[in-house]
């Protein structure tokens, strides 16, 4: 909503600066988003075109000789509408004319030669002056404008742009804003709703509401013998200042009243209405109407139209019909001031993508009480400006009368909720200043407040608390800490677990990423198989095809992130993301926390003492091992096949009993790496299911450490290629006193028998009760070796 300050001044006489007005309005909830000056370009003055001659070197240009009362200027002009005798605004040399497209830029007007002829300025169009959209020709001024006067004398205006919240339809009007401001700055509000026209029932049958649900009040009047012409200058200036284009006196008046008091009005050319009959009815499915903007609209059955006997003549509450448009020949009009069902107007406006100043107001629930005041105000102006005569009187079709609400305002509760002690006088004064009427029970400190009709947003005592608080000022309420009982505290363990996981992964040298939760159809193709037995959730209205499906796995996200980065990031890429995934299974919507990681490129930055190598499976496994020890979960691995992974280099991570899957780890297949435009050749990914992992992570329990020496013995073993180290380790651990088992060498080569690998393992032994003797160690080792041979066919390497 635009607020021109000169217009505001008609209803509240303030003596504070525009900055202070903006601050006060913002504080009370009418946020001023920007303040701009219009019609204040210095150097632009009124001139008169005294002579026009052709430009000798250009067909489309003319030379205008302009007089400003003192000096003469020769100005080259391309506008088709210049005539001798016109008064115009022109920019004298030195003027900085703002660029309409970017307000901080400007054009400097200079004396210069245009096609060989000197030009000493520029005659301006509305658009060039920032006064309107018209750029078809120069702006022609009224005859009484004084030569040499600066533009600011006539059009200088400070205009604020306000963001009016949807609850305050009353402030989609200058008077509404003025009322709030006057309450805030404690100045008189100089406006009253007036209706001084008589009513009539003589047209009752001609004007009918066919469905009361769509129109709670329809007020109108017929005026004959009016003359349509240009608006008087003051009216045009008002409309220009609020950003509206003047059209003709009648239409301008209806617009003016809408901005002044908030009631949209519409004038029909009565002679174009069949049998002078007007109906407010539901639209019919497929019904067509050409609206004033020239577009043909096809309606369904859920809109409201104004219609005559034959067809729709207006799209109610949104835009008039072309077939009943006011034109220069209009003689009799029907002027409508109505109240339409807000949700119907809203739905039609959305359906047709047609939002107008009228529809914005109706969908915010205007009060039906307002129609008569809007009509009366417009009528006064029409009779004064357009002439004409009221045919009989105002016809008012008003069925369900609005009943004012009485709200009980209890001072004790008001003060308790606000945390502020307020005097009775201030409460009463604030209510008065906003035109709320009340009865005060002085013994109980209770106000019975009657809300004014334009504030249908006020329905509860809490609404009144806000009214009082915002006018008194939120800044006068003290700052306090929360008092009262200590609230319950149930630590959110899973949340903390996720935080710890993030800490660990960051600590291990990975970068945390956050991607979009929705992916493209193409990216569904890089979902790992393990999520593909559940159904996708698609988005009905995606922002773009890039984000059409909710992700079931974070793998596509980390892959795409990494692939994009491989071109610009020449260091190792180590990333992870923790987030929710979404899918449907058995008709139920599932939302779960996953964490995915990816390593690609080299293991280290290049360094003088380290030879970098490409990352591989064991870099990924290292992270899983690290997490397993830090988060205290035990896991085992099983082979896993999936076409996004390299065969044989991908595994499922699960608990020891193989009942719960914790996640997956593997190397991306070479085909995928190529397809996904990785600028690297080795990619390791993993994904963990955090709910499962969390449930399997054990609490930290301290165990007394042994005071006795830790012994170790090394074994060189010859094993079959299909034997896993994990099996060797499990056998070792099945013996008492074994505390650890490591591999320190793996060898596969010529001097070994076919299908065999040599591995060197170191087993650690320790007892809590005493030092283990050589004999003890030998005995334990012997047992282990027997089990090795029996279960895994492992022999000592000679």
């Amino acid at each position, binding site marked *: 909503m635009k607020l021109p300050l000169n217009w505001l001044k008609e209803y509240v006489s303030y003596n504070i600066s525009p900055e202070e007005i903006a601050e006060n309005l913002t504080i009370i909830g009418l946020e001023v988003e920007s303040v701009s000056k219009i019609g204040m370009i210095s150097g632009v003055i009124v001139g008169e075109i005294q002579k026009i001659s052709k430009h000798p070197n250009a067909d489309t240009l003319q030379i205008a000789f302009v007089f400003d009362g003192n000096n003469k200027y020769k100005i080259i002009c391309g506008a088709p509408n210049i005539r001798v005798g016109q008064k115009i605004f022109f920019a004298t040399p030195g003027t900085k004319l703002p660029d309409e497209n970017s307000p901080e830029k400007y054009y400097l007007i200079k004396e210069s030669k245009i096609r060989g002829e000197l030009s000493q300025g520029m005659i301006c169009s509305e658009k060039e002056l920032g006064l309107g959209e018209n750029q078809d020709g120069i702006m022609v001024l009224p005859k009484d404008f004084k030569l040499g006067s600066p533009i600011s004398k006539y059009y200088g205006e400070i205009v604020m742009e306000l963001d009016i919240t949807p609850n305050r339809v009353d402030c989609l009007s200058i008077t509404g804003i003025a009322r709030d401001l006057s309450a805030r700055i404690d100045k008189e509000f100089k406006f009253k709703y007036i209706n001084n026209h008589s009513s009539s029932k003589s047209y009752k049958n001609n004007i009918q509401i066919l469905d009361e649900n769509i129109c709670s009040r329809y007020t109108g009047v017929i005026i004959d013998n009016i003359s349509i012409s240009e608006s008087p200058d003051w009216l045009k200036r008002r409309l220009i200042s609020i950003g509206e284009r003047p059209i003709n006196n009648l239409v301008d008046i209806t617009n003016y009243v809408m901005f002044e008091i908030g009631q949209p009005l519409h004038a029909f050319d009565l002679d174009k209405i069949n049998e002078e009959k007007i109906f407010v009815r539901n639209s019919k499915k497929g019904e067509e109407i050409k609206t004033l903007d020239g577009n043909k609209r096809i309606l369904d059955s859920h809109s409201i139209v104004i219609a005559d006997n034959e067809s729709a003549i207006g799209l109610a509450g949104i835009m008039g019909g072309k077939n009943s448009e006011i034109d220069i020949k209009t003689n009799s009009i029907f002027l409508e001031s109505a109240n339409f069902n807000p949700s119907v107007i809203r739905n039609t406006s959305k359906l047709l993508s047609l939002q107008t100043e009228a529809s914005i107001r109706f969908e915010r629930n205007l009060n039906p009480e307002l129609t008569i005041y809007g009509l009366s105000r417009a009528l006064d102006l029409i009779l004064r400006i357009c002439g004409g005569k009221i045919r009989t009187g105002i016809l008012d079709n008003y069925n369900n009368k609005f009943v004012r609400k009485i709200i009980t305002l209890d001072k004790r509760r008001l003060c308790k909720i606000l945390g502020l002690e307020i005097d009775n006088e201030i409460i009463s004064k604030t209510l008065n200043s906003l035109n709320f009427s009340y009865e005060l029970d002085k013994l109980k400190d209770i106000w019975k407040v009657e809300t004014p009709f334009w504030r249908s947003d006020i329905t509860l005592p809490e609404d009144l*608390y806000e009214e009082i608080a915002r006018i008194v000022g939120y800044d006068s309420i003290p700052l*306090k800490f929360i008092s009262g009982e200590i609230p319950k505290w149930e630590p959110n363990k899973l949340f903390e677990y996720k935080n710890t996981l993030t800490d660990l992964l960051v600590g291990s040298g990975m970068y*945390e*990423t956050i991607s979009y939760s929705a992916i493209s159809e193409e990216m569904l193709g890089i979902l790992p198989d393990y999520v593909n037995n559940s159904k996708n959730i*698609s988005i009905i209205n995606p922002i773009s095809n890039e*984000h059409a499906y909710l992700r079931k796995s974070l793998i596509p996200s980390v892959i795409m992130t990494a692939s994009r980065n491989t071109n*610009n990031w020449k260091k*190792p890429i180590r990333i992870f993301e923790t987030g929710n995934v*979404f899918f449907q299974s058995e008709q139920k919507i599932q939302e779960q926390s996953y964490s995915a990681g990816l390593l690609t490129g080299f293991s280290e930055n290049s360094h003088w003492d380290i030879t970098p190598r490409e990352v591989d499976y064991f870099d990924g496994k290292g992270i899983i091992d690290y997490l397993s020890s830090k988060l205290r979960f035990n896991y085992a691995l099983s082979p896993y096949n999936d076409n996004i992974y390299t065969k044989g280099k991908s595994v499922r991570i699960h608990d020891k009993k193989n009942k719960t899957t914790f996640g997956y780890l593997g190397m991306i297949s070479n085909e995928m790496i190529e397809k996904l435009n990785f600028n690297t050749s080795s990619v390791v990914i993993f994904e963990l299911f955090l709910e499962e992992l969390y449930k399997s992570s054990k609490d930290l329990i301290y165990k007394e450490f042994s005071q006795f020496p830790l012994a170790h013995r090394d074994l060189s073993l010859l094993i079959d290629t299909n034997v896993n180290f994990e099996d060797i380790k499990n056998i070792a651990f099945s013996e008492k006193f074994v505390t650890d088992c490591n591999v320190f060498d793996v060898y596969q080569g010529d001097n070994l028998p076919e299908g065999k690998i040599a591995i060197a393992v170191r087993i650690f032994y320790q007892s809590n009760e005493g030092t283990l003797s050589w004999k003890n160690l030998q005995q334990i080792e012997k047992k282990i070796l027997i089990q090795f041979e029996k279960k895994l066919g492992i022999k000592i390497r000679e």
Partner: protein
Amino acid sequence: MSNLNKIIEEIEEVEQSANGQIDQQILNLDQLEHWRIIFLGRNGEISKLMKYLSSVSDENKRIIGPKINNLKKSLSNKYNLTQKKIDQRNNAVTEFDFTLPGRPVNLGNYHPTTLIIREICTAFSEMGFQIIEGQEIETEKYNFDLLNIPNDHPARDQWDTIWLQTENTNVKHLLRTHTSPMQARVMEKSNPPLRVIIPGKCYRYEATDATHEWQFHQIEGLAIDKNISFSELKGTLFEMARKLFGTDQKVRFRCDFFPFVEPGVDMSIEWNGKWIEILGAGMVHPKVLEGVGYNPKEYSGFAFGLGPERISMLKNKIFDIRNFHLNDLRFLNQFTI
């Protein structure tokens, strides 16, 4: 017995002799090498001592074994140290370049959104707010209806919605447009007094540009008790601003409208001479309390919501919100906290 004592004596002799020599007589590397051969060499004194191990009982082995091992370790250390000492003495001016890069430790970074969420949550946590999370797929009931945002009302325009196609067609599912649905969910689940803070992702059907994203985070707060006042809402939010932006941070509270609070308020901070709105808040609307079965005559409370990315943008001078989801490592590598 006498055998054992003899061996121990011998170990001690070797120890004394080796230490004596290396401390007083060794001046250069040749002498040191000679010492090494005598004591640590293949046929040196230590090796000779080791041989006794095979000739003594297990019991004695347990006594002398560790002694010999300790001696061996101690002499090896002594050897290394002496070698370094001689090296240093020989090279008075060292050729060691102490500016060469150290062996790298891989650097990981938190996403800036995580950093700011943690910072904000910690500020509230210190004021007794418990951190919880909520679901991102919501229903109209929780996202709108229970928050007093009626259908067919322009107030809904503030939350342009992304709708989901699901198998269950009885309920319309959507991606939550704000974290506020969690207000109703928390209140339904627990009884007052409540003090919770809920960080999480939100989604809106909105075109993206430098200051708008269709996916972003919010942090929701809710406090309910018998006597919670607007004054405490102001105090709590002011304290958060102070912790985030410093003790001298100026804040401004102004009236604003959100259907689920009354009175409504937003808080701005003074930033480079301008007021920048950083959060919306208010006293929980009586209809919201009623909707979850709380008696608005008995309980009151406040709720607030803020956008962590926007706060991070202010604090870190990030001018394009889209950076938060591009995951460009050249962006992420700067948040080295």
